[in-house]
C-alpha cells in the first residue's frame, strides 16, 4: 500500500533554506546546519565512490586464484585504501554528518545546532583530512591495511604512510566536533515540552554515538600521532628493537576502533527506529528499552576491544574477560531487534522504499550480528580469526546494516531535504537489486572463511575460486544497486514530485514544518505536548484513529526538561 495521498499537485514553498541565499560563498561559508549537511553529503559520496572503486579493483582481481590483474603491492594498496576511505571518510561521518546534522535541530525543535560555526569548521577539517589522505593515495598509495599495525606500518612499509595517517588524524577532529555539537544541542536546545523521553530515538541514537565519538576519537588521534612520529622521527614505542611493543599499538588502536564500529551502527539503528514506527503507523515497542540499549551499546562497546587481539599471545585471563564482555555487548542489539520486530505486530504496514530498506536492515543486521557470536567465542575465533569469515561479518553489519540504514534514511527524508519525492517504483527495484547483490557478494565469504581462506590475500589456493567468482558477480549487482539511487535521487531533487510538509505522514517535529524547511527551521518555536510516535493523538496527521483508543491528548511529561 503506498503512502502518498492523491490530490492537486503541491507547490514548493516560496522561501526555504536552499533558495534563501545564492552563490558559492553562501554555501562555503554557511552556518546553516542543513546546508552543512549537504556539503557533507557531497563529500562523503565522493569518498564512497573512491572506496567503491578500490572495492571493484579488489573483486575483479580476485576472480582468478593467481591474481593476474594487479601486482601484489598494488593489491595490498587496494584493500588498504578501500578500508581507509570507507571507514574513516564514509561510514563514520555518513549518517551523523548528513542526516544527524540536518535533522537533529529540527527534531528537537531548535533553530540550529548549539555551535553552528563549529559545525562548519568540522566540515572543513574533514575536507583537509580527506585531502591529505587523497594525496597519500595518489603519491605512492598506502599498503598497511586500514589497521596500520606496527612495526609494518612504521618500519617496513614502502608506501605513503605518513600523509595518510596525518589525514585520518585530522579528520578525527571533525568527528569529535560533530559529537560535541550533538551532545550539547540535545542537552540545551530542546524546544519547550520536548522532554528527554519524548525525543525521537534517532536523537537518542545520535546522543549515544556522540558519547563514543568524544571519548574514543581522541585516543586514535594520539595513537596515530605516535605512529606518525615513529615513522618519521624513528621513536621506538612500537619497535621491539628499541624496546617498544607492537602490541601496545594494537591496544591503543582498537580502544578507539572497536567503539568506532558502534559509531557506524548506532545512527543506522536510530534511522530504523524512525522508519518502522512511521511505516507501521505504530509507536515503537519498548521505547525506553531501546533508548537504554543505545546507551548500553555505547558504554559496553568501550570494554571489548581486545577481542580483536585474542591470538596475539596476550594473557589468557584477559582474553577470557574480553570474550565475556563481547557476548554481553551483543545483548542490547538483540533487545533492539526484538523491539523493532514487535513494533510490526498490530501495525498498519506499508512497503515504501524506506521500509524496504528497514526490512533489509533487519535481515542483514541479524546475520551480521549473529555471526559476531562466532568470532567472540574464543574457541571458534582461533580458527576463523583473520579469515574471510571476519570480512563477511563486518560487511554484513557495516554495509548490510549501516549503509542500508543510511540509504533508507536518505530516501525517507529526501522529501524534507529537497521538497520533492524520489520515483517510488524505481527506488523499490533498486532496493531489491541492492539486497540481492549484497547477499551474493558477502555470503560466499562466510564459506571462504570456514574453508580457511585468510584475508588480505592477493592470491589464493584454487579450491577457493568458485566462491570468489560468486562474490565478484554479486558485487557487480551491488554496484548497480548503489548507482541507481545516486542517479534518481539527484534527478528527484530537481524534478521529483513536490512532496509537501508531511508526505508519509510521520510524527516527528521535522515533519511539522515546510519541505524544504526555512533556514530558521520553524516560523515559531514549537511547543511539544505529545509523545514520540504517537499516531493516536495527532489529529494533524489526518489519519483514521479509531475512537475510544489512545491516551489523553496531553500526555504527562516524564523526564527532565
Amino acid at each position, binding site marked *: 500500500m503506498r503512502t502518498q495521498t492523491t490530490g492537486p499537485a503541491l507547490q514548493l514553498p516560496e522561501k526555504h533554506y536552499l533558495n534563501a541565499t545564492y552563490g558559492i560563498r553562501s554555501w562555503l561559508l554557511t552556518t546553516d546546519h542543513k546546508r552543512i549537511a549537504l556539503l557533507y553529503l557531497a563529500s562523503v559520496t565522493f569518498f564512497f565512490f573512491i572506496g567503491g572503486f578500490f572495492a571493484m579493483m579488489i573483486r575483479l582481481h580476485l576472480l582468478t586464484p593467481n591474481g593476474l590483474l594487479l601486482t601484489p603491492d598494488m593489491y595490498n594498496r587496494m584493500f588498504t585504501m578501500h578500508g581507509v576511505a570507507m571507514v574513516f571518510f564514509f561510514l563514520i561521518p555518513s549518517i551523523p554528518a548528513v542526516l544527524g546534522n540536518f535533522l537533529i*535541530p529540527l527534531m528537537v525543535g*531548535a*533553530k*540550529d*545546532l*548549539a*555551535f*553552528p560555526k563549529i559545525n562548519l569548521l568540522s566540515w572543513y577539517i574533514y575536507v583537509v583530512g580527506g585531502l591529505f589522505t587523497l594525496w597519500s593515495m595518489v603519491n605512492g598509495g598506502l599498503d598497511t591495511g586500514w589497521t596500520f599495525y606496527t612495526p609494518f606500518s612504521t618500519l617496513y612499509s614502502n608506501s605513503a604512510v605518513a600523509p595518510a595517517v596525518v589525514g585520518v588524524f585530522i579528520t578525527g577532529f571533525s568527528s*569529535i566536533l560533530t559529537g*560535541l*555539537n550533538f*551532545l*550539547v544541542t540535545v*542537552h*540545551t*536546545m530542546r524546544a519547550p515540552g520536548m522532554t528527554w523521553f519524548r525525543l525521537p530515538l534517532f536523537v537518542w541514537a545520535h546522543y549515544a554515538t556522540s558519547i563514543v565519538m*568524544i*571519548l*574514543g*576519537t*581522541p*585516543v586514535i*588521534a*594520539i*595513537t596515530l600521532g*605516535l605512529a606518525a*612520529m615513529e615513522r618519521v*622521527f*624513528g*621513536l*621506538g*614505542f612500537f619497535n621491539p*628493537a*628499541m*624496546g*617498544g*611493543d607492537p602490541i*601496545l599499538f594494537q591496544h*591503543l588502536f582498537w*580502544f578507539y576502533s572497536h567503539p568506532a564500529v558502534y559509531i557506524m551502527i548506532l545512527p543506522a539503528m536510530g534511522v530504523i527506529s524512525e522508519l518502522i514506527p512511521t511505516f507501521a503507523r505504530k509507536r515503537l515497542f519498548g521505547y525506553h528499552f531501546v533508548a537504554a540499549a543505545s546507551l548500553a551499546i555505547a558504554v559496553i562497546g568501550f570494554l571489548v576491544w581486545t577481542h580483536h587481539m585474542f591470538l596475539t599471545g596476550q594473557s589468557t585471563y584477559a582474553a577470557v574477560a574480553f570474550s565475556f564482555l563481547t557476548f554481553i555487548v551483543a545483548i542490547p542489539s538483540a533487545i533492539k531487534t526484538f523491539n523493532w520486530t514487535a513494533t510490526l505486530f498490530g501495525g498498519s504496514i506499508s512497503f515504501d522504499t524506506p521500509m524496504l530498506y528497514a526490512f533489509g536492515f533487519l535481515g542483514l543486521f541479524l546475520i551480521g550480528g549473529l555471526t559476531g557470536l562466532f568470532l567472540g567465542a574464543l574457541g571458534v575465533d582461533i580458527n576463523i580469526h583473520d579469515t574471510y569469515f571476519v570480512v563477511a561479518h563486518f560487511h554484513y553489519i557495516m554495509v548490510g546494516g549501516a549503509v542500508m540504514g543510511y540509504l533508507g534514511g536518505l530516501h525517507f527524508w529526501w522529501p524534507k531535504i529537497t521538497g520533492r519525492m524520489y520515483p517510488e517504483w524505481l527506488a523499490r527495484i533498486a532496493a531489491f537489486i541492492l539486497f540481492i547483490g549484497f547477499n551474493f557478494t558477502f555470503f560466499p565469504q562466510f564459506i571462504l572463511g570456514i574453508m580457511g581462506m585468510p584475508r588480505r590475500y592477493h592470491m589464493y589456493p584454487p579450491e577457493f575460486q568458485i566462491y570468489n567468482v560468486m562474490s565478484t558477480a554479486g558485487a557487480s549487482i551491488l554496484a548497480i544497486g548503489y548507482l541507481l539511487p545516486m542517479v534518481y535521487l539527484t534527478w528527484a531533487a530537481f524534478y521529483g514530485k513536490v512532496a509537501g510538509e508531511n508526505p508519509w505522514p510521520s510524527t516527528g517535529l521535522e515533519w511539522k514544518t515546510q519541505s524544504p524547511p526555512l533556514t*530558521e527551521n520553524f516560523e515559531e*518555536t514549537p511547543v511539544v505536548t505529545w509523545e514520540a510516535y504517537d499516531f493516536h493523538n495527532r489529529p494533524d496527521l489526518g489519519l483514521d484513529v479509531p475512537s475510544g483508543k489512545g491516551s489523553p491528548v496531553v500526555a504527562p511529561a516524564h523526564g527532565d526538561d
Partner: protein
Amino acid sequence: MHRTGALYGQFKTLEQQKDTATLGMWIFLVTEVMFFGGIMLAYTINRHTYFHAFAMGSNTLSLGLGGFNTVVLLASSFTMAMAVWSAQTSRKKLITLFLSLTILLGFVFFGVKYVEYAQKFHHHLVPGKNFDIFYCVNNPAKCDDIDAADMAKEKEEIEAAAKADPDLNAHAQLYYSAYFGMTGLHALHMVIGAGLLFWLLKESVAGKFNAEWNNPVDIVGLYWHFVDIVWIYLFPLLYLIDRHK
C-alpha cells in the same frame, strides 16, 4: 562576527547561550583528557617496563626549573580565577590586570621551557640520530652547564643504570620521546590558551565583560585550568618518580 555579549541566532536567551557554551567547553575538556590519556598510558607502561632508563631520564631533568614552572602555572591559574571573579563582580580594570598577569606567567612558563629544551638539545637528548644518554658523562666539557657535583652524581647513576639495562640508550630514548611528546603537546595547548587569553584581554579592554555577561572569561578559565592540571600530572610523572637527588 558577532559582538561579544550579543545573543546568537540559534539561542532563545543569553542564559541558554551561556549554559550551552559552558557545557561545550566541559565536553571538549573530556576529549582532551582522552587525548592526553593515551600518551600518558604509553608512558606509564614503558616506565614500568624500563624503570632504570626512565629513572635516569627523570634525573636528567632539572627539579628546580620544573618545580618553578609548576609554581608559575599554579599562580597563573590563581590569576585566571581572579580574572573570572573580577568579571563576575564587574571589576573591569581588575579583569584586564589579572588576564595580563596570567598571560605574563604563561610566557614565563614558555621561557623556562625554552631553556629546558635548549639544554636537552645541547646535551644530545633529543630523540633521533644524535640521541646519546651518555653524552654529558662522556664529554663533561661540552656540558659545562652541569656543575661538577651534579656531574659526578649523574655519572654514578648512569653507570648503575647501564649495568642494569644494557639497552639503556634505546630505552632512554623512549623516555625522551615521551617527554617531548607530552610536554610538547602541553606547550601547544598553552600556546592556544595564550591566544585565547589575548583575545579575552582585547575584549576586556573594550569593556565587554561584566556581571551580566562574563561567559567567555569563564570558559577560557576552564580551559586554562585544564592545561594547568595536565602539567600537575606531567610534573610528577616526568620529573619526580624515581628521583634520586
